[in-house]
Structure formats: structure tokens, C-alpha cells
């Protein structure tokens, strides 16, 4: 009798322990959000298309084909061909690799710089805080696109080869992106620092480095996750605008933005919409999906904020 009740107790405690983790709960909540799930699947599709799709394409990137110039979409060229007879779909997929990679890499860099500087300035306060935050203020008050344009112009001035330019674009985008993130992380750290678990780390005599990297920054991950997602969307948009203006990724490297450059030629713009509508649509759909996913994540991570 007694053993039985003990067993029940044990089972009970087991079920308590088994309550799903934060991430599992988030995932379950996210699964209920139809728009976010559709976006997630679309993004996966976009990634597969961009990174694996080219291997299934019968056409070789940058292979010109004079006999098939400016063909409208057909059975052999699903999205038509461009002025050099290159297959648009193949280029679109390769451009997707570039644009998605730049978006994600720029996000990681911004997060790295932003959360590090934000954490340091929120943790140490004082003069360090003052310097970092004023720097962030100043960078945030310089309008973003002109700043990027200027940096793009410098790259052209230095005659940076096309294949290195995309790395510099990532750095440029993160240079513009970190101040907002630093402010956000700093705000989070300031409120986290007042919580009892930080007193505990004080009592345990942990080093500052351990406090920051093992106790403070991990607690900002949920909010960072949301901001990071939205940041990817912003980076993809900025990169495409820069490339469209000829100051971002430059041909022959394809990107969704510089493929849209075809629209700058009035004949192509009027008569050959297959040259510029597919890349524009790809940017739009990708960015919309990322935004919807980010919004879904925000709701899922913090049910209190659910609106």
C-alpha cells in the first residue's frame, strides 16, 4: 500500500519534471500560428531552391547563349533568358544564395557586435557605457541609406574585386545595424542585473566574464532571436537596394538586387518583364516570410505580449 502510494508520488513528480522546456513550449505555440508556419516552410523552400536548385538546372551559370537571347518564359527556360541568353531561373537561384547569405551573415555580425557592446555597456555602466552609447546615438542619427551609399562608393573607389565585395557589404550592413541591437541588449541587461539570480552570482564570486557570457547574455536570447529574424529581412532589403543602385554586389556575381538592374533599361523594362519581376518577387516573398516568422516568434516566445 505504502509502496504503491510512493510509486504514484514518483510518477507525479516525474510528470512535473517532464513539463516541456521553454523552447518546446515556444515551438508548440509557434506551430499554432498558421501564417508563421507557412512562412517557415516557404523560407525552407527558398533555401533549398537557392542552395540545391542549381545542381538540378541543366544550364550553367554565366554561360552565354547568343542563339537564345531575351527569350520569354518557355518550357526549356521556365523564367526566360536575359540579354546574354543566360537562364533567368538559374541566375535567380544563384542570386538567392548570395542574397540570403549576405542577409544572414550581416545579421550574425550585427548581433555579435551589438550584443557584446550592449552587454559591456549595460554591465559596467560609467564611462564605458557613456562612450559606447553616445557612439551608437551618433551612428543612429546618420541616415542609413546615404551612409551605405557612401561606403558603397568607397568600395568602388578602391576597385574592390566583385568576389570580395559581398563580404564588405556584410560588414557595412552590420556597421549600420549594430547600434539598435546594442541599445536593446543594454536595456535588457540593465533590468536583468537587478534580479536575484545576479545577486547569487555575486555571492558565488563569479568572474565578470562568466556573469556576462553565462548568465546575462543567454537571458537576452529570446528577444535577440526575434530581432535577429527581423534584422535578416532588413539586411536583405538594404542589400538589394544597394545592388540595384550598382553600389552593392556587382555583376558578374548575381544578387536579387542587381538582377533588377535590367529594369533600368527602358526597353527591357517595358517589353521584358521576366527579366526583373522574378527577382523582385523573390525579394518580396522572402522578406514577407521572414517578417511574418519573426512576428510569430515574438508572440510564441512571450505569450504575455500576445495581441
Amino acid at each position: 500500500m505504502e509502496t504503491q502510494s510512493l510509486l504514484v508520488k514518483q510518477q507525479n513528480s516525474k510528470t512535473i519534471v517532464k513539463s516541456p522546456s521553454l523552447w518546446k513550449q515556444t515551438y508548440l505555440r509557434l506551430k499554432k500560428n498558421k501564417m508563421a508556419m507557412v512562412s517557415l516552410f516557404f523560407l525552407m523552400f527558398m533555401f533549398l531552391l537557392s542552395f540545391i536548385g542549381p545542381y538540378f538546372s541543366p544550364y550553367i551559370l554565366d554561360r552565354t547563349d547568343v542563339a537564345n537571347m531575351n527569350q520569354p518564359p518557355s518550357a526549356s527556360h521556365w523564367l526566360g533568358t536575359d540579354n546574354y541568353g543566360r537562364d533567368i531561373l538559374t541566375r535567380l537561384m544563384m542570386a538567392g544564395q548570395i542574397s540570403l547569405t549576405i542577409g544572414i551573415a550581416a545579421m550574425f555580425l550585427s548581433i555579435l557586435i551589438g550584443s557584446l557592446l550592449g552587454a559591456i555597456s549595460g554591465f559596467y555602466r560609467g564611462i564605458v557605457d557613456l562612450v559606447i552609447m553616445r557612439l551608437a546615438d551618433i551612428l543612429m542619427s546618420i541616415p542609413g541609406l546615404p551612409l551605405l551609399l557612401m561606403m558603397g562608393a568607397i568600395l568602388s573607389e578602391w576597385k574592390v574585386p566583385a568576389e570580395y565585395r559581398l563580404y564588405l557589404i556584410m560588414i557595412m550592413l552590420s556597421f549600420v545595424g549594430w547600434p539598435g541591437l546594442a541599445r536593446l541588449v543594454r536595456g535588457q541587461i540593465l533590468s536583468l542585473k537587478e534580479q536575484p539570480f545576479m545577486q547569487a552570482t555575486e555571492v558565488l564570486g563569479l568572474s565578470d566574464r562568466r556573469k556576462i557570457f553565462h548568465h546575462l547574455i543567454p537571458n537576452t536570447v529570446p528577444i535577440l532571436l526575434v530581432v535577429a529574424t527581423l534584422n535578416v529581412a532588413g539586411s536583405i532589403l538594404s542589400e538589394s537596394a544597394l545592388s540595384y543602385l550598382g553600389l552593392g554586389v556587382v555583376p558578374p556575381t548575381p544578387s536579387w538586387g542587381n538582377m533588377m538592374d535590367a529594369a533600368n533599361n527602358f526597353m527591357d523594362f517595358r517589353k521584358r518583364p521576366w527579366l526583373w519581376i522574378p527577382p523582385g518577387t523573390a525579394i518580396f516573398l522572402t522578406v514577407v516570410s521572414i517578417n511574418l516568422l519573426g512576428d510569430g516568434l515574438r508572440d510564441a516566445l512571450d505569450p504575455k505580449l500576445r495581441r
Partner: protein
Amino acid sequence: MKQYVLQRFLQMIVILFGTSFIIFFLFAILPGDFIDSNISLTPQRAQELKSLYGLDQPILHRYLNWLGNALHGDFGYSLKHQEKVLSLLNKYVWNSFFVAIFALILTWSIALLTGVLSAIKQYSWFDGAVTFLVFAAMSFPSFFISLLFIKWFGVDLQILPIGGMIETGSENTGVSYLLEVGKHMILPVTILTLLSVGSLTRYFRTGMLEVIRLDYIRTARAKGLKERVVIFKHALKNAILPAITLLAFELPGLFSGAIIMEQIFNWPGVGRIQLESVSFRDYPVLMAFTMFLSCLTIIGNFLADVTYAAVDPRIRLR
């Protein structure tokens, strides 16, 4: 309150100087200038021109020099247009301003209306449609939507002009001139509105949702007030209060010109001047304009903080 404003004001001055120095410094270290990129000059002549424009002195010296002139309203000379920067910008900035101000008024009216309505009818089909449209509007690359609109309305339907501010060679004056400019403005204003209406609608929607859950709204309803009175008289005021600060943030946007939109629509605004000065390395123009916008941003932030403190006493106590 006085102390808060004063403190915030001093902070603003510091940031203004810091920003202007950083911008000046960035421009000073830019490789290549108008003189270097002109290959027809002999080295000797290039050197002469450099000393004429004071380009051969140390940066701090040049900055102080520039600052002194700028405080007297002299922002230098456009090397490409051979015109004073101030008068050059003055010529084009208003073209941008009028598009921006119309777009601003439209954006705020639409966002306020749809935001509040979709908050009141949360989870209705209307709310769903608005949410979806908001995300679509926030995600369109500006150049793509501009091009699509030109294609639809300018090329396919041919009901609106495809670009420019007036017809080529037009000599209309008076009312017909205004009508002509107005017709050319429809697409640019629509695009700018579309691009900014999304986030603002969301802002009003969340603001309204937060307010209608508060206790005093329940009290108002319990008193037996009509739903219309509860929403528009009691809730709306509190919901749009924080938005006043957002209006201050719009300040730089009114004058900045929309670089991409102006480029695509061939609109003779200040955004195109910016892009042009980037490609011609006409740094005095670009620098003066970047400074101008940064100053407006900083002043906008200051106004936002001060108005917020004025309408919400809780802020001052920090």
C-alpha cells in the same frame, strides 16, 4: 521639467558636435575626391586646387575651419554644380518636401483609421486582412514596388505619367501647372505612403489594444457609456498620445528626399542630388546634406523626448 529639458538640450549639443565631427572625419578620410578623379589635371594644377580648397591641411584644422563657416551659414561650394551648397539644396529640397508632406498626412490618416478599427475588431476578417497588408507593405523593396506601379499605371494603363515633375517642354503656369505637378505626384506619394503606412498602422493597433484592456475602460463601459464614446473619447486619446513623439521622428524624413523613389521616378528632388554627388564624388554637397539630416534627426529626437515628457509626467521623474 525645466531641468529635464535643459539636461536633454545640453546632451543634444554634445551629440551634435560629435556627429558633425564624425561625419567630417569620415568624409576627410574618403579616398578620392573631385580633384583626384579628374584625370585631365596636371599634378601641379591639382596641388594648386587642393590648397585653394584647403584640402592639404590637417583634419582638425579643416574641421574647425568648416565649423566656423557653417555656423555663418556657409556650407561650401558644390564642385560639380559650381554653386553654393546651400542654394543648390534649397532649389531641390522643396520638391522632396512636398511629396513627403503629402505622403506623411496620408500615412498618418490611413494608419490611424485602419489601426484603431482593426484593434476594435481584433481577430475579425478585417483585422486579418489589415495585418496581412501591413506585412506586405513593410516588406516591399521600394524600387520593386515603384517599378511595378510605373508598369501598371504608366505603361500598361497609361493613365499616369511614368516620371518627372512636369511634361517635357511644358510651359504651363498657375493652376494648370499645379494640376500637372499634382498628376506627376500621385505615384510617388502613393509609393511613399505605402512604404511607411505598415509599421505605423501596427503601432496604432497595438497602442489601442493595450489601452482598451485597461481598468478605466472597463469602468467606462460599466458606467453604461456607449461603445462609441468609450472608444473614441476615452481610449483613443491615450492610445495616440505616445504617437506624438513619433511625429517628431518624422522631421528628418520630410527633408531627406527618397533616394530610390526619386531616382526611379526621375523626380527632381534632393535624393537624386545625393545619389549624383555620390557618383561624382561631390563631397561638399553630400557632407553638408548628411550633416543637415543628422542634425534634424537629433533635433527630432530632442523634440520627441521633450514633448513626451510634457504629455506624460511619469517620464520626467527618471
